[in-house]
């Protein structure tokens, strides 16, 4: 086995075992930071030994065994230290006696440990950036280098972010547990938010940086799918997974070969990924069975599902989409959602209906500088034959967007109002 073959094989095993190993170790030592170090040490040991010895028959068990040795050493050192201090001596002795059973116990609990790891990595005591970096590192099976490339920042920046995040968790004495009671809802929201953030970072990628950032979409989907298995009774988990599956189903249709964006209604639906659509619709059905009222993710997934079910853009059920936006505005009110609702209204009931909502948003401070507001307004005005006003709006939108290609499209629309084409 050559070095590079061995390295690839180790990476493959790590991808499968890394998060489980870290989670089980964190449960054992009660500290995510120490667990991550132990897991990384085991990885380094594998990289050193496997090229010579070959891949062990049970690579997962090998990694766990190696890490566990170190963990037990660590526990014993702690124990001796604490014994010296004549504290908790007996209790730790019991802990030591139980050591041989640990492996079996850890196997049974691996799912629960993973879930705890997700909650801790997404703990609100951390900044959003830190949650994303730590989640990708501990659960995503991405190397620091890969995380850095995907975020278009230097590797030391990401490494620093991870070190600081681990320190923050330690200083805040965040327990390694699944939150219970009233806490659970808010903490789960944070986990879902982090996963969706990762997804959107990938989804928002433009051509050129495309391929590496798409990895983020895949990672987020993977994390979501794993979470759906770990917390199968949470409707919003299925809602989020469904939303991501449905959005990902359009990945290959939403840009031209040269990287220009293609709007949803102009996309070639034959290029949509029907396997992902099927999975998305299935996930949505699960969310619907579990929840009495749909949460924000399930509602957004339902909207995406309306598009997915329409065989042509003309067949889109805009009345249904409008109703879903009405519900979304209720549970997760935001000016951006209102703007989307306006578009749906205009498609279902004509441009007048949409324009009324858009006009009500003009004074909204959070939408000041948001190019889609004048862009949507321009479109509605154009459909109402108010051409001069429409042109002014397209020009305003073009001056606001930071995306070069989008600016071109908007300028072109402004120009085309002159020729009436």
């Amino acid at each position, binding site marked *: 086995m050559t070095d590079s073959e061995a390295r*690839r*094989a180790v*990476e*493959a*095993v790590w*991808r*499968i075992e890394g998060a489980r190993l870290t989670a089980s170790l964190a449960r054992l030592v009660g500290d995510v930071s120490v667990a991550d170090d132990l897991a990384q040490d085991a990885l380094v040991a594998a990289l050193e030994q496997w090229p010579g010895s070959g891949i062990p028959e049970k*690579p997962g068990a090998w990694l766990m065994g190696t890490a566990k040795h170190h963990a037990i050493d660590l526990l014993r050192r702690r124990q001796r230290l604490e014994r010296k201090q004549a504290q908790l001596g007996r209790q730790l002795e019991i802990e030591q006696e139980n050591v041989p059973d640990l492996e079996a116990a850890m196997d049974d609990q691996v*799912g629960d440990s993973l879930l705890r790891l997700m909650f801790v990595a997404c703990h609100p005591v951390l900044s959003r950036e830190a949650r994303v970096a730590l989640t990708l590192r501990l659960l995503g*099976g991405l190397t620091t280098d890969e995380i850095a490339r995907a975020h278009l920042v230097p590797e030391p920046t990401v490494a620093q972010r991870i070190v600081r995040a681990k320190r923050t968790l330690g200083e805040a004495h965040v327990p390694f547990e699944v939150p219970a009671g009233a806490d659970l809802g808010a903490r789960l929201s944070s986990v879902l938010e982090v996963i969706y953030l990762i997804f959107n970072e990938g989804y928002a990628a433009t051509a050129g940086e*495309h*391929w590496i950032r798409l990895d983020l979409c*895949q990672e987020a*989907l*993977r*994390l*979501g*799918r*794993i979470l759906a*298995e*770990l917390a199968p009774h949470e409707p919003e988990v299925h809602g989020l997974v469904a939303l991501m599956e449905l959005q990902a189903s359009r990945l*290959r249709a939403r840009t031209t*070969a040269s990287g220009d964006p293609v709007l949803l209604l102009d996309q070639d639906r034959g*290029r949509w990924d029907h*396997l992902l659509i099927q*999975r998305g619709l299935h996930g949505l059905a699960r969310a619907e069975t579990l929840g009495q009222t749909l949460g924000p993710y399930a509602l957004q997934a339902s909207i995406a599902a309306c598009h997915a079910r329409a065989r042509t853009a003309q067949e889109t059920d805009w009345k249904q989409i409008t109703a879903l936006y009405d519900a979304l505005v209720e549970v997760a009110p935001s000016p951006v959602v209102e703007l989307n609702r306006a578009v749906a209204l205009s498609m279902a009931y004509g441009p007048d209906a949409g324009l009324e909502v858009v006009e009500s948003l003009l004074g909204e401070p959070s939408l000041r500088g948001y190019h889609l507001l004048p862009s949507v307004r321009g479109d509605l005005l154009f459909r109402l034959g108010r051409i001069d006003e429409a042109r002014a709006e397209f020009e305003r939108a073009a001056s606001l967007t930071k995306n070069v290609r989008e600016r071109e499209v908007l300028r072109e629309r402004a120009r085309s109002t002159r020729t009436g084409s």
Partner: protein
Amino acid sequence: MRVLVIVKANKESEAGALPDKQLVDEMQKFNDELSRNGVMLAADGLHPSSKGKRVRFAGSKPTVIDGPFAETKELIAGYWIWQVKSVEEAVEWIKRAPFAKALGQPVPDDKVPEIEIRPIFEQDEFDRALAAQQAKVASKR
């Protein structure tokens, strides 16, 4: 990346025999494990080739050939579609499949489980390859 994981047919699968209960249970466990790890996208077993058709496009019109087909080793009994990071990851996963039980056992050659793993072309990969090919053709002209 996605991979198609192909389970080759054998005499039994071609005879339409269902795998025994124990193997079915173990396979279910393995499939659950794949789902729990976000790897599984799809999985299906196929009817024997006796229920299949082949269509050959030669001569002036398509010819439809009824199954069963002879070359058992080239036939397919089932497949998975997995989302993985590398082909190596897929290989690691398949090593954990219940097929591994055949190892060290005196299994007749025609019953040795054989799995084939094939990366699926991603759409943009396909587009790029196509564009490169066209550019090559154009430069030769």
